[in-house]
Each structure stands twice: as C-alpha cells, then as structure tokens.
C-alpha cells in the first residue's frame, strides 16, 4: 500500500487523558487497572480499566441527542492534544466532503439501552421517551457523533468486528484515500464500559480475578478496559519530520473456525500478520517490535504465540500493553496503534505489565520490562470474536 501519515493522534484510557498521561504511565510501566466497581457492578471479582471523569464530560447542547457514555468518552478524547484543531485544519485544507470518519466500536452506547431497560414502563414495557436509539444505541452512533461534531459531509461508517474493529478502520480509510474519494480520515476507536461486556465475558469465564497477566504461565483471563483513540490519517507530505509516523501496511484475515475461540494454531493470526508485512513490502526481520493482541486468556495468548513464533521465531521483541490499559475491545486496535506511534517517536519498547513468570510453552521474545531500543518499524495485532484478525505495520518516516 502507499504509506499514509498519522498526522495527528490522541488517546484517552485508564492511563489518563491524552498522550502525555499515557506516555508517562508507559515509561513507568504502570497499570491503570483497578478493582471493578463500575456503575452497579459490584458482584464481579475482576479488575477494569476505567477512563477517569467520563461522566463529567458534558457534551455541547447542540449535540445533546448523542449523550451516552460512549459519546462522552469520544468527546473527551477529541478535546485532548489539540486533536479537534488538527481536524479543523485538515477540513480547511481539504474540504468538508473530503474528510472521512471511520471508527471502530463493539458496543457503541449500549449502556444507555441497558439503563433504559431498567426504566421500562411497568405496564406497557415501553422504553422511556428520553431514550434516543439512533444517536446512542445504534452501532454507527459514535461515527455519526464525530461526523456531526466536526460538521463533516464526507463518507463515514463504523466498523464493528469486535476486538479488531479499530485496526480494520485503518484499512478502510486507506482504500478510500487510495480510491481518491477522500483526502484525509479521522480513524480510531471508541468503546466504553457497559454491563453487556462485563457480564458477557464473565459468562464465558474469561475475566481474570486480578489485573490481567498477558503471556504469564498463570494467566487467568482478561481485564476489560475502555478508550477513545483517534488518528488523523493523510497522504504524507514531501517534507516529513524524521519522527513522523506512517501507516505502512494492513493485513486482514478470518479464522473460519469458531465464534469465541481462536484457531488453536493461530493460523488466521499468522495470515493477517503475513498479509500486513506483504502490504508494507517488508520481511519479518524488518519488524523491531510487536504489540501483541495479548488478552491474557489462556487460549488467545497460546494461539497468538504460535502464530508469532511461526512467522518471527523468538527474535522479535514483543509485548501486550493490555496489562496497563485492559482490553479496550473495539478501541484496542486504535489505542495500540497509538502506543506503537509513541514507541516509534519516543524511541523505546514498552514492556508488558503484571506478567511475573512467562509461559515457557510460548517461544517468543516477550518483554516484561521497557527496553531502551528505538524501533523503526513495528507491528500491532488485533483479533476478535468471530475469528476476525487484523495486523497493522507502522514505521518512522526515517
């Protein structure tokens, strides 16, 4: 593919609002995971990554119809790091119709619906009048919110492929730019805490009773997180700074195996990584760091480990940053692309948090501590329910 420039980006998660907060936590290898006391959820013995002050975010009155936790988190994210101003500048350069919005989410504003179901009319069963389906519940609602926030008039959509959603949007945006339909795209992902995912992963017995420990021999499952991750994607200018971050490749595949378990040998994951390398015109040996999907469930990490070992051997430094952020589901691809961008710009490799004893059965080079190595090209994995896989290759301009 033709490389694209991540000309601006920002992320908000349990590591804090904006890039500085996240970078500080990553450099100190600190985790944002805390015991779960979300909303009325006090009966799950698990840890979560809750973004601070989401409910204090007040949407502008003109966007009141979009009010739900997911869009409050999106709005909060858009206020950080001058991201909104960067998008406004891109709109001024390219025009309202030439800037697309492609965001990933798995559950959008479903929490709003969960709360509305508690307030059903006791006689008719009807949902309350103040529940607005289109702008809060519908899967598209977060992209609709962002499109309206910026008063954009170009193409927009949500990609909702569970936990690969906000990695796949990079591919959709790249194809749309390549086809000449747009000149820039707001991509990324927003997924927020809700009861469906907390009780859902609990029903599958995939929640860890402790902060998740990716690739640990005693890993017990995942910790749910939430995040808003935004990237402005444009064609690279001729005079890019050396530390400018480029999207070099996107690879996608499907497991065709099972709805909630990965292919046991990680075949689909391996195909996605190989396709991303091919898309970037690179070899496995060109990759300096892999941000693993690494959810810390026994099956997921084992399958991903096999896939990475098959393609990269035990040479390439790798880690999952979900011990720090939790699994932010539909926002994970975008959030972890931004973590990769920070690593590329700042010149370090983030070690995974919480992992005490590496699983000896997984023959990859897993970093449990930050490494003072400046990567030039990195790969980020995002896999999800339904056997959906997406890998991104990012690199420095020079």
């Amino acid at each position, binding site marked *: 593919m033709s490389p694209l420039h991540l000309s601006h980006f920002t992320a908000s998660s349990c590591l804090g609002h904006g890039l500085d907060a996240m970078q500080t936590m990553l450099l100190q290898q600190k985790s944002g995971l805390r015991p779960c006391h979300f909303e009325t959820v006090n009966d799950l013995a698990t840890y979560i990554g809750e973004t601070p002050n989401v409910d204090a975010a007040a949407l502008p009155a003109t966007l009141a119809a979009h009010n739900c936790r997911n869009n409050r988190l999106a709005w909060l994210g858009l206020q950080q790091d001058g991201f909104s101003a960067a998008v406004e500048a891109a709109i001024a350069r390219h025009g309202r*119709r030439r800037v697309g919005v492609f965001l990933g989410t798995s559950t959008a504003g479903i929490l709003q*619906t969960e709360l509305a*179901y508690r307030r059903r009319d006791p006689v008719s*069963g009807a*949902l309350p009048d103040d529940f607005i389906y*289109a702008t809060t*519940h519908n899967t598209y609602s977060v992209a609709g919110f962002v499109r309206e926030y910026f008063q954009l008039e170009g193409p927009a959509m949500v*990609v909702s492929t569970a936990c690969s959603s906000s990695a796949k949007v990079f591919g959709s945006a790249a*194809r749309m730019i390549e086809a000449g339909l747009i000149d820039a795209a707001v991509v990324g992902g927003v997924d927020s805490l809700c009861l469906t995912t907390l009780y859902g992963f609990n029903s599958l017995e995939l929640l860890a009773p402790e902060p998740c420990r990716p690739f640990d021999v005693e890993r017990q499952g995942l910790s749910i997180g939430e995040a808003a991750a935004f990237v402005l994607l444009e064609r690279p200018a001729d005079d890019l700074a050396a530390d400018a971050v480029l999207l070099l490749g996107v690879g996608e595949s499907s497991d065709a195996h099972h709805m909630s378990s990965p292919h046991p040998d990680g075949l689909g994951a391996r195909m996605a990584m190989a396709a991303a390398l091919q898309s970037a015109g690179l070899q496995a040996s060109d990759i300096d760091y892999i941000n693993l999907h690494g959810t810390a469930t026994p099956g997921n990490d084992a399958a991903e480990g096999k896939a990475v070992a098959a393609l990269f051997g035990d040479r390439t430094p790798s880690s999952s940053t979900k011990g720090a952020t939790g699994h932010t589901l539909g926002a994970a691809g975008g959030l972890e692309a931004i973590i990769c961008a920070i690593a590329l710009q700042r010149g370090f490799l983030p070690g995974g948090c919480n992992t005490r004893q590496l699983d000896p059965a997984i023959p990859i080079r897993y970093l449990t501590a930050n490494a003072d190595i400046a990567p030039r090209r990195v790969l980020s994995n995002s896999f999800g329910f339904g056997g959906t896989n997406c890998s991104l290759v990012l690199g420095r301009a020079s």
Partner: protein
Amino acid sequence: MSIKHSLEAWIDGIGLLGPGLDNWPAAQPVLAATTAYVAQPLVVPAPLALPPAERRRVGQSVKIALAVAQEAVTAAQADAKQLAAVFASSGADGDNCDAICKVLASDDRHISPTRFHNSVHNAPAGYWGIASGAMTPATVVCAYDASFGAGLLEAMTQVGAVAAGVLLVAYEAPYPEPLQAKRPHPSAFGLALVLMPQRGPRSLARIRIELVDAVADTMANAELEALRQQIPCARGLPLAQALAGGGAARVVLEYLAPLSLAVEIEACN
C-alpha cells in the same frame, strides 16, 4: 458538486430475500414490474451450510445474511474461499440484544455465553467463515440508515484495492419490542452481490458508483417503496431494480446526507 472518482466492478451473482421476494429469480420479474408484487411474510431458510451445533445457535439475522450470501455465491459459481466479504447492517441481532438487556435489567444478571458471543455485530461474518471455510478478510460496517451505501462503498473500494472478488451482504432483521417501537423495521431483508474486478463468463452487469449530490431514487410500487424507506439494506432496492431490468440504467441510492451514491448498471449481453 460531483466528486469525479468512480469505482467499477462486475456483478457475478445476486442474492435477495424479503417479504414477498423469496430469492433473486422470484424477485427479478417483480422488480422489473412484469409480475405483481404480493406482500407475504418472509420465510428464512435454515443455514444448512453450518455444522448442526452452530445452526442451533444462530438467530434470524445470521440466517438472513447467510441465505443471501449463499444465493449470490452459488449464482456466481464463485469459490467462497477466494472472496473477501463485507457485511453491512444497521442493527445486527436485535432479538439477542433485547434478551441480553432484559437479563441485565433483572435481579439475576447471568447472561448466556452463546447470546454474548452472538451479540457482536460481526456474528454473521463469523458464521459465514465457519460455513464457507473462507479465511479471507471479512469486514462489517454500519452507518445507520446509510448502511447499504456504506457497505457498497466499502466493497467497491476493496475490489479496486486488491483486485479480487468481494461478497457484499447487506441484511437487517426486525427488533422485538420494546426496541421495535424505537427502531421499527417491518420485516427482515437481505441483499447480496458478488463483485468481481474483471468481467467473467458469469458476469451479469458492470457496476460503477460515485458520490454525488442528488436526491435518492424511490420505488414506483408503494409497498416496495415502504420497504426501501423502513429497512436500511432495502435502500439498495433501486439498484436491484436496475439489475432486474437488464440493459443500462443509472440510479441514485440514499447515503449520508448531503451525499448520495450514483450507481450505473450496464447489463452484459
């Protein structure tokens, strides 16, 4: 202002399922107005390509999606394993969503693990992979009422970018109450297209699309127009009608205001 860039592909197979529209061969004369439209409740075929264990677990939305996907691929005589897939839906599995929300609003919040993994918007894509064995990329898009247009745009840019065939599956299933009152879809509906980068022996028509400023076309038949207006994937009906008519036609499909999608169809003879 019309944006100049147009995208081109060849349609090799069509799948269609809606009330009174049992499949593409049955729908074609109705859409071409040589046979009268008779509204009838939709009968969704069982997804026989799924293993029995999975077949028991799927709801109506997956069945609709898989039925039109299979019809289009069979008609195209295409190898499903070679096709990338784009699924487009506004609401995905409404029955499942309602069941989960009811349990979460009750005193016992234990939800079913099967319901949970079926709640993802990409459940039909996952089951399609299991049914077809396709390990090719599959993406899943949603743009509320513009979901058909978003899916068509995504599929057409994929054909252009990777020069390989793409299966587009647009589907919708109605919500049960109380969500139905907030988001009323009168029926399930599905429309699938096999889009190829080159003309082949099975090609039915060439399709070109571009983003335009124009008012979307409507259906002359009032009942079909009601479907178009009330079911997001049925926003593709004017395209299906153009295909049913044979020959050459240009239709405008609803997309995200102020943009519409102009679609040019030219039948292969």
